[in-house]
């Protein structure tokens, strides 16, 4: 948690939030809700306009990627930046909590790491994000990015507010050497997959790794994929947008299928985080892991080449193929006092060379968004990931990115409850729907 390296002056609000993170008294906690009343924010926003005259000081990048490898990669990129820039890394939990404070403050960080999706669009609708449409035109840094990425990076009014720099795919990862040792191979059909799980369980191996302890959102990975395979991407998106109810028979069918997997999960999954769940897999005590390609960085270096993956096999042959490919990148605060410098930094981060450097240093298996990145030197695993995403008909992001963080909280509660005791699916879905309605009402 303590990965904060503050280089910017601590504002009063930042101090209050920091104080709360350190767990101050109930009394102070009682006062924390006062973080910026509406009136106060109003004045701060006008304050922003007043200070937007002279660019001063370096362009700041507020970074939420605090895992060691991506953090190092980004720090190296900023170190090589020819202009004047500084980086400020904050643990993702705190970053998420403070994002609105960053953006509305009188002196916001210029560039911020974030994901494409609903949160970015909400902020754009409030006028808090810098319009970067010119970067998507003519000679702009993002002009050659794919149309899907452009769509993903656009606000509701059609302008672009996001600069995607890499994305990754979700799939079922496994170790080739372990599969060889057990004499099994990647399954083609859903029945084969269930049979493989049964086979592995018989050998005393946990077939499916997972970590839903301090990262309960990992329970949504399988929910997303089962929904994509049973009901299709269209239904999935509509469900997350509130156009269907979680009490629908379609969702019930997803949990019925999910029930079949429960005996195959690592029995300790409720105590692990998604990083910790890799340990038994390293030791061949668990076999397969449905997770994003970022998982490769948690394996020891000498095992990374041993990793392979297969896509979740089709269940309902009538739905188009779909994969999850969350996209990461940057947006900038509209309150920046140096829009030109900010866009220069964004263009630098989006360039083919920077993307290549980031992917190489971070050791992750993320894919570049820039079409000019030479991917031929990338590992076979990454090549296969590119192929997977190029051949699928539909692309989704992830539960919270396709919906919202608030809806994710309802999924965390419902799905971890379900995984602990799947006997009352209708009851769990009713509770989920009630919680989701409270979110949609807000």
């Amino acid at each position: 948690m303590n990965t904060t390296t503050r280089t910017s002056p601590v504002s009063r609000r930042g101090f209050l939030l920091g104080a709360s993170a350190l767990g101050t008294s109930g009394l102070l906690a009682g006062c924390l809700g006062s973080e910026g009343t509406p009136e106060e924010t109003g004045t701060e926003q006008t304050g922003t306009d007043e200070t937007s005259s002279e660019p001063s000081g370096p362009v700041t990048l507020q970074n939420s990627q605090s895992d060691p490898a991506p953090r190092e990669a980004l720090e190296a990129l900023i170190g090589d930046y020819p202009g004047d820039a500084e980086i400020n890394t904050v643990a993702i939990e705190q970053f998420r909590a403070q994002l609105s404070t960053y953006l509305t403050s009188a002196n916001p960080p210029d560039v911020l790491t974030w994901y494409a999706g609903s949160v970015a669009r909400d902020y754009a609708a409030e006028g808090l994000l810098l319009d970067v449409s010119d970067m998507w035109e003519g000679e702009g840094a993002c002009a050659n990015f794919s149309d899907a990425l452009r769509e993903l990076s656009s606000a509701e009014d059609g302008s672009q507010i996001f600069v995607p720099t890499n994305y990754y795919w979700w799939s079922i990862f496994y170790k080739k050497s372990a599969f060889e040792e057990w004499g099994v191979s990647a399954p083609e059909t859903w029945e084969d997959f269930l049979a493989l799980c049964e086979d592995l369980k018989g050998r005393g191996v946990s077939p499916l790794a997972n970590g839903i302890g301090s990262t309960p959102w990992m329970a949504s990975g399988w929910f997303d994929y089962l929904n994509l395979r049973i009901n299709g991407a269209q239904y999935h998106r509509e469900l997350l947008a509130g156009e269907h109810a979680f009490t629908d028979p379609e969702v019930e069918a997803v949990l019925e299928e999910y029930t079949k997997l429960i005996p195959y999960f690592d029995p300790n999954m409720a105590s692990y985080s998604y990083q910790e769940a890799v340990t038994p897999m390293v030791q061949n005590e668990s076999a397969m892991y449905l997770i994003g390609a970022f998982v490769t960085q948690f394996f020891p270096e000498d095992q990374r080449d041993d990793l392979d993956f297969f896509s979740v096999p089709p269940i309902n042959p009538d739905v188009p193929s779909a994969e999850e490919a969350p996209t990461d990148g940057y947006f900038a605060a509209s309150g920046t006092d140096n829009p030109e410098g900010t866009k220069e930094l964004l263009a630098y981060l989006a360039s083919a060379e920077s993307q290549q450097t980031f992917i190489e240093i971070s050791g992750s298996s993320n894919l570049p968004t820039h079409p000019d990145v030479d991917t031929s030197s990338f590992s076979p695993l990454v090549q296969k990931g590119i192929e997977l995403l190029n051949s699928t008909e539909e692309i989704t992001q992830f539960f919270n990115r396709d919906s919202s963080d608030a809806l994710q909280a309802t999924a965390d509660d419902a799905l971890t409850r379900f995984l602990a005791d799947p006997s009352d699916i209708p009851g769990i879905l009713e509770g989920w729907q009630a919680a989701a309605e409270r979110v949609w009402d807000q």
Partner: protein
Amino acid sequence: MPLIVWVFLLVPLVVEAFWVFWPAMNSFSLSFTRWNGIGAAEPVGLGNYQDLMSDPTFQTALRNNVIWVIGFGGLSVVIGLALAVLLNRPGRGIGLYRAAIYLPMVFSLAVTGLFWRVLYSPDGLVNFSLDSLGLGALERQWLADPDVALYAVLVAAVWRQVGYIMVLYLAGLKGVDPSLEEAAAMDGANRWQRFTRIVMPQLRSVNGVIFAVTVIDSLRTFDIVWAMTRGGPYNSTHLLSTYMFEQGFTLVNLGYGSAIAVVIFALAIVFIISYLVRSIRQED
């Protein structure tokens, strides 16, 4: 009055008003709105409080807070007092014991939480010890089991707090007049009678301090729960403070979070006022 007295009175008052009362007032007004941190806050009247009434997680958090105040206060005071009495004697190595028991106090609650998370992990020391003692049936995933997770966190918090309570009581015991105890012994009082009738009444002022410290400490508990469980599994270990933090800062539901903060504030004020009233009466 000389000017310097006014300065000493007014400066803290201004600081207090700006840093404590003004934000508290804002929190109060914010609790009648719905606000996600951007745009304008939308007034909803008592809506947040009505939602709290029907919010199952809030009820869990409120119940957990009661369990916490009783468990944390009760256990740490009883164990701390027992240790103080046990270690309030001269002897070789007694300082070492005292230091060892006080040692956890130097770690922050967040560090304590991380440390205990390792102990509680599925193949951690707690399960290993149970297994070695032949109590394998008691092994469980301590922090992932909603029936025991809150108590598992409570044990970690008490582990840290007892050293503090012990030191306070040790200081109090130093002020106990030994001649009274000797006189009672001469009159034939046994150890228990001497403790309850002679020693405890002399510790009354220390008890008052410890009561206030533990109640306030237990109401403000946040970091150890956040570090160990984040309110999970499925919201079963939320305290009011962690639920407030989650609503306010993870989900950026600031109006609703403020309403919870007001509830915490009200509870704390009730305890503090009743404590002040009691101690003022005692002084009279």
